């Protein structure tokens, strides 16, 4: 309503960091369940964990890490006033998100094709610990997937704002916050990948 809206970039970043804490805690609940159920069914978890596809997981890890680099570079690019470069890097980040989801789609389809999903006849024949592992796997990676999509939409929105000059080298806190969110998506995957694919 006032003619010069109040602007506080530090406050905006501060708020974003608080929000990221809540996201960590949201996933924290699932990591608690993972820890408790791993302690209860260590052998079943180890067996089930070996069925996850290491190549798929590794490729997705590389894709996400690269996308995090791209989005960080896009922030620097805009700060130095290079809007074209920033847009290209943002496009690359969003493309990586899409690549991640396509990969995830094939990974999940393969699992489901093999009868590995909650409530399937295949799972009914297996030990209960393996069922819990795969349920946790689907819930955790599913929730993470939702965050990838949300993050990509957020970056897409910022892409439009950068393109029409609403976000520029003098006013880029929105881009920074979107990038922070994207780093969080990456960070959570950095914990999911070893816990589900590597250590078991």
């Amino acid at each position, binding site marked *: *309503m006032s003619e010069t809206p109040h602007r*506080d970039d530090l406050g905006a970043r501060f708020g974003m960091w*608080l929000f990221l804490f809540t996201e960590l805690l*949201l996933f*924290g609940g699932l990591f*608690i369940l993972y820890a408790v*159920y791993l302690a209860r069914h260590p052998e079943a978890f180890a067996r089930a964990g070996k069925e996850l596809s290491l190549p798929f997981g590794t490729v997705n890890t590389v894709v996400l890490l690269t996308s995090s680099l791209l989005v960080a570079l896009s922030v620097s690019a805009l700060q130095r006033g290079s809007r074209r470069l920033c847009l290209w890097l943002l496009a690359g980040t969003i493309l990586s998100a899409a690549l991640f989801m396509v990969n995830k789609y094939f990974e999940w389809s393969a699992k489901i094709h093999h009868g590995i999903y909650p*409530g399937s006849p295949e799972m009914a024949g297996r030990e209960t610990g393996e069922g*819990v592992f795969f349920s946790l796997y689907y819930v955790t990676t599913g929730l993470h997937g939702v965050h990838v999509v949300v993050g990509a939409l957020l970056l897409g929105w910022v892409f439009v704002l950068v393109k029409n000059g609403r976000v520029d080298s003098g006013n880029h806190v929105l881009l920074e916050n979107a990038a922070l969110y994207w780093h969080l998506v990456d960070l959570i995957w950095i914990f999911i990948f070893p816990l589900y694919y590597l250590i078991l």
Partner: protein
Amino acid sequence: MTPTPDTLSQSGDRGFLDPAVAAPGLFGWIFSTDHKRIGLLYLYSVTAFFIVGVLLGLLIRLELIAPGETIVGAQTYNALFTLHGVVMIFLFIIPGIPGAFGNLVLPIQIGAGDVAFPRLNLLSWWLYAVGALLALGSLFSGGGPPDTGWTFYVPFSVQTTTNVSLAVFAVFLIGFSSILTGLNFITTIHRLRAPGMGWGRLPLFIWSLYSTAWVQILATPILGITLVIVLLERLLGTGLFDPARGGDPIMFQHLFWIYSHPAVYIMVLPAMGVVSDIIPVFSRKPAFGYWAIAFSGIAIAAAGSLVWGHHMFTSGMSDMAVLVFSLLTFIVAIPSAVKVFNWVATLYKGAISLDPPMLFALTFVFLFAVGGLSGLILGSAGTDVHVHDTHFVVGHFHYVMFGGTGMAFFAAMHYWLPKFYGRMYNKRIATFAWALMFVGFNVLYFTMKLVGLKGMPRRYYDYVSEFHTLNLISTVGSWVLGLGLLILFVNLFRGLMRGEPAGPNPWGGASLEWTVPSPPPVENFPEPPRVTHGPYDFREAGIL
């Protein structure tokens, strides 16, 4: 602080309430980002849901007036107490004081024009409103009203055919709203304090909102993920809480109470803040132990996050876990008592005036002390096993929630609403309503504690005839309390619409909200204030 600019409080100046300052009609409210309008939106919604909750509660008490089926059967009774709990906890107590009075008062008390993220603030209210409508919608759709109790315990919440899914989703949305409010308040308090408003000059209400906001941010996501899993259990059968499929229902209880016990402090900390602000003003003395009250709030928030296990003493934890949770529970009592002693010390040798806000604030201290001490009976594992899931528990938490937070909510209404409407209610009628409520409250809930000690379990629509007399007395108490509430609301409504002009500072407060006109102008302060004294320095503020 500069002297009150009398020129701004001319009669007829409607401040932020003036229809000309916002979009016309309803849109000027539901799409306004003015913190004062959002605060009033919250006030209207939480009060409406409070009245719904009260009516449900009165029906519950009416059913219990005599043994056997009196007005409703078992299934309806289950739905009644579930809804009473969900409505009162998620739609009234949790958003109540922070949503309504936090929004109304916080920016003005720290000398800011608005909260840090006004649009996010509006989104919070919308999430709350949509969640509340969905919660009500769960009554009339799907398999009928939820019958699990507000705690949604598995396995029953996963197996029941009633409309738990929608109710759970509604609570998820309301939780999101709570997180965004907390995030907004923390950022506001850090970033938007006026020049001179150091941390030591924050009103204690702000300190309490600050500690509450941290609990909201840190605990609510755990409820979020727990509810998401319950939804997935119901929709996809993931089996994470199903022992037949390797899960563990006790893990639900842990995750649920990791949020829901700290949530108790989301409910009561702002109430303590209200009381800490009111007692000095009506004693004409600075708050005794300012820093002790401020930091005990943080201590309650911190220690309160580690005591969730005391809800599960009979769920089958190890003895060691029971011992640790019991000890931690007793530790929370220390900062709570620190507050009570500091309030009492503030009263000592003060020039006390018993206006309605003060009466409700003192009632808070008394009822909260009774409720808090009975909490220790539940916190020690040995006695808890005896009274677990009895009406003693129901009496206990109504003393701390209703006697505590509810009374503080009424105190805040009587203290701050004249500021935001610019009009004063009838104090004598308010005092009369208070007296009725005080008597009715104690008759209603103290008898509950007694009948609970005799062994009457909670959540049954029927009981053996030995419990009849006490239940009858309790139900009569609920009518007295209900009558008091009716008078309170009617009196407030009439006063705020048609009462005498209240003036900028009806109570002689020294914090910033009393330096602006009533109702405050849209921008709160014509120019950013310079703060030169603390919130309770009545002498420096020129009031003494």
